[in-house]
């Protein structure tokens, strides 16, 4: 198997670069072609620097300054559902249960939210497509307005089956799928997990999800335990995401101007 892969490599890809390098597999000596470093242009250097600079600091976009524990408490993020609705996998995220109502641990929420917002900021900085999904009719208009204002996309309507998995036929050939999906509520109207969570996992799209105490956080890349039912909470989330994305995009434009590049497409 390894030998077959080796010959495929020989015949297929690396024929243009011809420096001989020796190596051994399972005791046999082989020699084969290895890649030369091709001379890089200056533009490549600058764009590479643009992409790697934000990765040097843990909180390059300073998203932790956007919210505090008190803000989360005032927006009632800690209020979960009743004990009977509790999902087993949400138990690590719960602080406790008071008079049958689950209380979500806001310290954990702070950490998770910071990770999620940081990730969103990096995606937005690199010009990725962010899709907001929620199936709550109450907040449909709010979420669509948020998406419009930050220049990203929203889907708060009935989810047709093949939107992610059958994209080439649904939208047309050559469509670009979202690079990040943000679930402001992971359940659909019949209290089942939204189909898009599974589809995003199938299509290797990272997801951020606000998981309430009755939701399943397993397939979500960056779950954020928190309330998803109150209007004030949803407004807080929308505001936070909008500010993060705008901040990241402004930073990108600033960096490009600084390095004298024309606005790149990637």
């Amino acid at each position: 198997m390894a030998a077959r892969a080796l010959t495929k490599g020989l015949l297929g890809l690396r024929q243009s670069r011809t420096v001989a390098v020796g190596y051994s597999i399972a005791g046999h000596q082989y020699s084969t072609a290895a890649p030369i470093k091709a001379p890089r242009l200056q533009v490549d250097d600058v764009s590479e620097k643009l992409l790697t600079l934000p990765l040097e600091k843990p909180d390059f976009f300073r998203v932790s300054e956007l919210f505090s524990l008190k803000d989360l408490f005032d927006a009632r993020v800690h209020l979960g559902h009743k004990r009977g609705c509790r999902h087993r996998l949400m138990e690590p995220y719960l602080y406790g249960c008071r008079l049958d109502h689950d209380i979500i641990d806001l310290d954990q929420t702070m950490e998770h939210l910071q990770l999620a917002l940081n990730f969103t900021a990096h995606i937005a900085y690199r010009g990725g497509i962010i899709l907001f999904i929620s199936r709550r009719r109450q907040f449909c208009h709010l979420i669509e307005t948020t998406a419009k204002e930050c220049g990203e996309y929203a889907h708060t309507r009935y989810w047709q089956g093949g939107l992610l998995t059958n994209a080439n036929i649904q939208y047309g050939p050559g469509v670009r799928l979202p690079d990040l999906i943000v679930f402001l509520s992971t359940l659909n109207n019949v209290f089942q997990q939204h189909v898009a969570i599974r589809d995003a996992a199938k299509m290797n799209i990272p997801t951020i999800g606000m998981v309430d105490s009755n939701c399943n956080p397993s397939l979500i890349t960056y779950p954020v335990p928190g309330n998803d039912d109150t209007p004030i909470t949803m407004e807080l989330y929308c505001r936070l995401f909008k500010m993060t994305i705008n901040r990241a995009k402004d930073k990108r434009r600033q960096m490009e101007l600084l390095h004298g590049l024309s606005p790149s497409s990637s």
Partner: protein
Amino acid sequence: MWTNMAAHRSTRAVGLLLGRCGGRGPVRVEVLTRQICQTSGLCRKNLAAAGPEKFSLEFIQKQVEDFDIGRRHLANMMGEDPETFSQEDIDRSIAYLFPSGLFEKRARPHMKHPDQIFPRQRAVQWGEDRRPFHFLFYTGKQSYYSLMHETYGKLLSVEKHQDRMRSKGLFSNEVKNMSLSSSRWLTKEELEALLVENVSLQDYEHFLQLMERLLATPYSAIQEEFVLHYRRQLESQSKKQAVPPLERDQAGVAFSTAQGRRKTSQSSVVLRDGGSGRISVNGQDYLAYFPILQDREQLMFPLQFGGVLGRFDLQCSVSGGGRSGQAGALRLAIARALLSFLSEGQMEAMRQAGLLTTDPRVRERKKPGQEGARKKFTWKKR
């Protein structure tokens, strides 16, 4: 012969690449191929599943340029000014240069702007970085959902306005609503044409429900313009009988004019008051023009019904058709002209008698395979 065969059948060769392990000699590869023959049946395109033909943007633009050049050529040919050559002039010129006797108007030669010939299509939805333009692109029905979003936004703004009025204490329930009796909602097909997208029946009904909800709120009149954009005027209102106006000539004699049609005859009648019942048809006396009693009875019927036999003078002109058709056309014209001299009740009575209705019966065409319009050839059992 071999090339002919290749033209009919496409062959695929499947190959396996095998490498020899062992570093002693140069690596040798052996390629085994297996021939798979496909018939032309698989190569045929599924035309039914392809959908309506899509035209690229460059193609449409080229068509528009060609049309404009052709229009200027046509204007030069007809000896008219190319700058002010309108679509009516084009139609007229084409009808003159290429006279056609075809009954089907759509089959006749025509020259129209490409926008009216090629159906409206969606342009490509994303830019060069492949980011879609519309924020609701990933829903699949972006125009429809953006319409719903906009409508809901208007509803929220109306409710906000209502709250403001309430807080100022100026809220009143008797706010004038817009008059919607003369218009109707868009049909589903019209909405599809507006959005350039397929709209399902449920979606259409949801849209109408949302609009009705918007109209049900008290201060919906502030969004009147938005709502009227999605309503269409009702085509035919309840038409009242068009009474010809009563005119007076220089001598002070009251008269009225009216037209009438029956089969292929067209007539025009001038009814003068203060006369003695003289009737002239095409310059001739009616007794000479209509020797048959039945035709003269047709002329008299409206006057006799109104009870004004000796009061009016008639000056009629009639053309086309035969004697009965001309008589019927004149009867209708006289009845219409008489309306300006009669009361409402008498007018209603005339309408009930059928004097004011154009007779829609015309000659039915002969069909092939039959003797006449209805008569069939003799039926033979065997």
